[in-house]
C-alpha cells in the first residue's frame, strides 16, 4: 500500500486530446454563462449541495469499507431511515428540527450497531461478497419496515423558519437549507479528518486498517473499534438523511438510489482516500445538475435539437464513472491494490 502511494504521480497523458476536451468544456461553460447565467449559477450551487449529501454517505460507506472490508449495502436504507426519522420527530412528535438533527443520527447509528453486532460480526474474514449480500438482505428488511411504518407515499416536513428563508449572495438567492447542508457537510468532513489523523483513536483505527493482527497484539481492542466506526459511519448516513429530508422530502426509493451513487463516488474518487471521495462527490453532484443546463444552452445557440438528451443529468454519475474507469481505473486519488 505504501509503495503504491509513492507512485501516484499522474501518468503521461496524451496532452492534445485533453487540451481540446478542456477547451471544449470551457467554451460550453462560457456559452452557458452567456445564455443563462442565473440558472447556471443556481444549478451549480444545487449540484454542490447535492454533492455534499453524496459525500457524507460515501464517507461513511468508505470508512466502513476501509476498516471492516464490508460494503454496507444497508447504508442507503439507514440514510432513508434518517430522513423518515426526521419526519417522525418534526411532523408527528412536533419537536423542533434541531432535536431531530441530534437525536435521529444517534438512533440510526444505534440501528447500525445492532446490525454490526448481530450479523456482520459473524462475517469478518469471510468472502467480502458474503458481507455485501447479508447487508443487501438487511437493506430489503429495513426498506420493507420503513414501508410498513410510514407507508409508500413520498412525504416531507417543514424545516424551521430559519432554514425556509433564503440569502442574497450577489445577484443570486440561495435557500438557507442548502447553505446549512453545505456547512454541516463541511463540518463532517473536517471533523472526520481530524478524528482520523489527529487523535489517538484515529491512529488506532488506522493501525487496525493496516495490520489488524498486529494492532490486536499491541493491545488495541479492535472489535470495539469496529463497532464505534460502524456507529460513526451509519450516524453520518442518518445525519445526511435528515438534511436531505429537510431539503426535498423522502420516498422509499431514495435509499437504493443513494447507496449506488455513493459507491459510484467512491469508485470515481478512489478507494481509501477521504480527499478523493470529497472531490468526486462534488464533481458528480455538479455534473448531475449542470449538464442539462449546459446542453440546453448549447442547443439554443447552435439550434441542434438532438444535442439535448432528456434525463442526461441522472445518467451523468455513471458516465463519469465509466470515463474515469477507462482512463484511470483506480479512481482519481485512489491507492492501488485495495480490494482488487
Amino acid at each position, binding site marked *: 500500500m505504501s509503495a503504491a502511494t509513492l507512485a501516484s504521480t499522474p501518468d503521461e497523458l496524451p496532452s492534445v486530446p485533453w487540451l481540446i476536451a478542456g477547451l471544449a468544456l470551457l467554451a460550453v461553460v462560457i456559452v452557458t454563462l452567456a445564455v443563462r447565467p442565473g440558472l447556471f449559477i443556481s444549478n451549480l450551487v444545487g449540484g454542490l449541495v447535492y454533492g455534499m449529501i453524496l459525500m457524507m454517505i460515501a464517507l461513511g460507506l468508505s470508512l466502513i469499507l476501509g476498516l471492516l472490508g464490508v*460494503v454496507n449495502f444497508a447504508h442507503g436504507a439507514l440514510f432513508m431511515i434518517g430522513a423518515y426519522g426526521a419526519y417522525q420527530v418534526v411532523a408527528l412528535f412536533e419537536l423542533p428540527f434541531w432535536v431531530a438533527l441530534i437525536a435521529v443520527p444517534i438512533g440510526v447509528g444505534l440501528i447500525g450497531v445492532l446490525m454490526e453486532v448481530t*450479523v456482520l460480526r*459473524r*462475517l469478518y474474514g*469471510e*468472502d*467480502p*461478497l*458474503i458481507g*455485501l*449480500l*447479508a447487508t*443487501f*438482505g*438487511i*437493506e*430489503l*428488511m429495513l*426498506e*420493507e*419496515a420503513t*414501508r*410498513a411504518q410510514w407507508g409508500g407515499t413520498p412525504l416531507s416536513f417543514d424545516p424551521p423558519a430559519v432554514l425556509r428563508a433564503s440569502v442574497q449572495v450577489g445577484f443570486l438567492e440561495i435557500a438557507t437549507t442548502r447553505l446549512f447542508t453545505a456547512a454541516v457537510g463541511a463540518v463532517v468532513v473536517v471533523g472526520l479528518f481530524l478524528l482520523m489523523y489527529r487523535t489517538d483513536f484515529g491512529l488506532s483505527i488506522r493501525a487496525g486498517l493496516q495490520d489488524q493482527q498486529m494492532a490486536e497484539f499491541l493491545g488495541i481492542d479492535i472489535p470495539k473499534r469496529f463497532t464505534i466506526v460502524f456507529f460513526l459511519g451509519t450516524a453520518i448516513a442518518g445525519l445526511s438523511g435528515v438534511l436531505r429530508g429537510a431539503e426535498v422530502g423522502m420516498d422509499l426509493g431514495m435509499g*437504493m438510489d443513494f447507496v*449506488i451513487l455513493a*459507491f*459510484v463516488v467512491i*469508485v470515481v474518487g478512489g478507494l481509501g482516500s477521504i480527499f478523493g471521495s470529497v472531490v468526486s462527490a462534488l464533481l458528480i453532484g455538479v455534473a448531475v445538475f449542470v449538464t442539462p443546463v449546459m446542453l440546453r444552452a448549447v442547443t439554443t445557440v447552435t439550434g441542434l435539437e438532438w444535442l439535448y*438528451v*432528456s*434525463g442526461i443529468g*441522472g*445518467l451523468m*454519475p*455513471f*458516465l463519469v*464513472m*465509466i470515463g474515469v*474507469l*477507462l482512463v484511470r*481505473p483506480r479512481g482519481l486519488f485512489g491507492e492501488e491494490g485495495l*480490494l*482488487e
Partner: protein
Amino acid sequence: MSDASEPAAAGRDRLRNALSRYRVPIGILLLVVLLRPVIAHDALLGSSYIASAMLIWMLFAAAFNLLYGYSGLLSFGHAIFLGTGIYGVAIGIRHFDLPYFVAAPIGVIVAGLIAYGIARLIVGYGEIYFAMLTLAFAEAIHFVVNADPFGLTGGADGLRSDTTPAWIESFRGRSVVQLGGGEFELYYFVALVFVIAMLALWQIVRSPFGRTLVAIRDNEELARAMGISTARYQTWAFTLSGVFSAVAGTLLVIRNSGASLENFGMMTGAEVILMSIFGGISYFFGPIAGAFSWFFAREYLTNLEMVAIPLVGTVDVGPILGYWRFFFGFLFVVVIVLSPQRGLWGFVRSIADRIRDRLAEVISE
C-alpha cells in the same frame, strides 16, 4: 455365482453409471414433465397458471448461477440481459414488424454484445467492485430505457400492446401456440426452449471451459499462475450468462404479453440473486429449487390471503403478508450467515443422503 448373472450385473452397473452420469438431463426432463401436474394438484396451488413463468425464471436463475455459482462473480445487473431479451422481442415486433424468430435472436445477440462490453470494462476489478459496478450499469441502462430513446421503449409505460407474435393465441389468460398446423399450450413451447437451454448450460458447466471457471473461482491467483487468462474466461462467463438470461427474457415477453420498465428494475436483478442463493449456488439445481420455492411461496401466500379473510374474518393476514419481503429478507440473512453456499438444495440433498445411508444400512442388515 453362475456365468449368466455376470453380464446382467455388468449391465446393471452400466445402467447405474449412465443414470448417475446423466442425472442432470434426466432431472431436467422430469422437472418439465412433472412441474405442471404437481403444482396443479389441489393440495398445492390448484392451478398450473404460473408453471411457464416458473420455468422461465428457473432458466434465468440457472443462467445467473453460471456467473455467480461457477465463476464466483456476483452481478446485481442481470436485469439488463433479461430486459434486453424482453425489449428486443417487443421492439422488434411492435416497431419493425419482425417475426418473433428473427427478433428473439437479435435480442439475444444484443444482450450478448452488451454483456461482452460491460465485462471487458469491469472484469479486472475485485469481486466487490465488480458487483457494485454491475449495479451501476443496471441503473444507467434503466435510466436510458426510462427516458424512452427515439420512442422505442415506451418509457415508464413499457410496451404493452402489439408485442405478441402472430402465432400466439391468448384467451382469458391462457396462451396457445399455433405453429406448423399444430396447436399446443404455451407451456410446451417454453418447456422446449427451457430444456435446450438448460442442456446447453449443463454442457458448458461440465466442459473444460466450465471446469476452468470453477478453478478460477476457487483460486484465481493459482489459475493465473498456471497460465489461464482469467480475465478472458470471466468475460466469456459473463457474456454467456447474459446470453442465457436474454433467452429467458425472449420467453418472458410472451408469457407476460409485453415489456414493462420493471423488467429492467433493481428488484428484478435482486430477485434472481435472492432466489439463487436461497436455493443454493453450489449445485446445478440449486437456483432452480430457489426459483421454484420463491414462486410457489408467493403464489401460495396470496392464495392463503384470499381464502383466509372470508372464512376467519377477524384474522387479517393480508397486511402482514403484504410485507413478505421483510420476512424473506430476514430468511435470506439467516441463510447467508449460516450457510451461504448450500442453501435449500443443499438441505434437501443432505436429507436425501441421510435417507439413502439409512436404507443402505437396513438392506445390508
